[in-house]
């Protein structure tokens, strides 16, 4: 079961670094999106694997039910591979 109070705390913590958390229920899981203010410290966000692990007890689901999107995920690749 989703713990809204802890989710709000997590959102407030992320906001201190300039990140914004949105969570939407999607089927049996959750779509979690992190967006960033301009010039936000890119290294201040924990790696995805860690944030998913942190979110599991808060959202009350297993890791595979959390689809996490980070700010850079939507940016096109730059330059040749």
């Amino acid at each position, binding site marked *: 079961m989703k713990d809204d109070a802890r989710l709000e705390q997590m959102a407030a913590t992320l906001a201190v670094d300039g990140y914004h958390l949105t969570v939407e229920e999607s089927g049996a899981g959750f779509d979690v999106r992190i967006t960033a203010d301009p010039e936000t410290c890119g290294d201040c*966000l924990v790696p995805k694997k860690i944030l998913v692990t942190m979110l599991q007890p808060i959202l009350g689901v297993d890791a595979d039910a959390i689809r996490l999107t980070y700010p850079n995920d939507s940016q096109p690749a730059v330059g040749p591979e």
Partner: protein
Amino acid sequence: MFDRILDPTGLSVRPAGAASDARRLPSLAGARVGLLDNTKQNAALLLAEIGELMASRYGAVVTIRRTKEMFALPVDEPLLSEMKAACDVVVVGVGDCGSCSASAVADGITFEREGIPAAVICSDAFAVTARAMAEVHGDADFDFLMTPHPVAVLNPEQVAVRAGELLDVVVARVSEEGR
């Protein structure tokens, strides 16, 4: 040769439900203190001030000061081994953002599990992240120390004041003194 490799995410070091407290020192007199700063603004200065106070008021000796290469990543094996060999207690900080507070707590738990009492300093704005990381590492009750956010904007005089405010809890965290 290293006897093991640390997962850079910190997630493999997670014995479920394992408390991580190392044995506290009965006294800090003569104790070797390690300072591990994470490159965050004022971290090195704050730890240096705390180290000086531990020396002048409790007779400890700062024997090693190191800076992590990346604040968001847990301490690596070579640095862990070096600090284990050089100090009896360690002060880690400053968790002044989401990733570095989580990483600082992970470092503290790692040191404790290696038998080194660790005082981890985080700013209070990141208590949620720090606590969540402690849970991830199977030690939800890990006792990190909090100081008001932010630390980065303080001037040197304010950092010195902050160090004085933290001294007693740092000492109580790593030793029996002041408990």
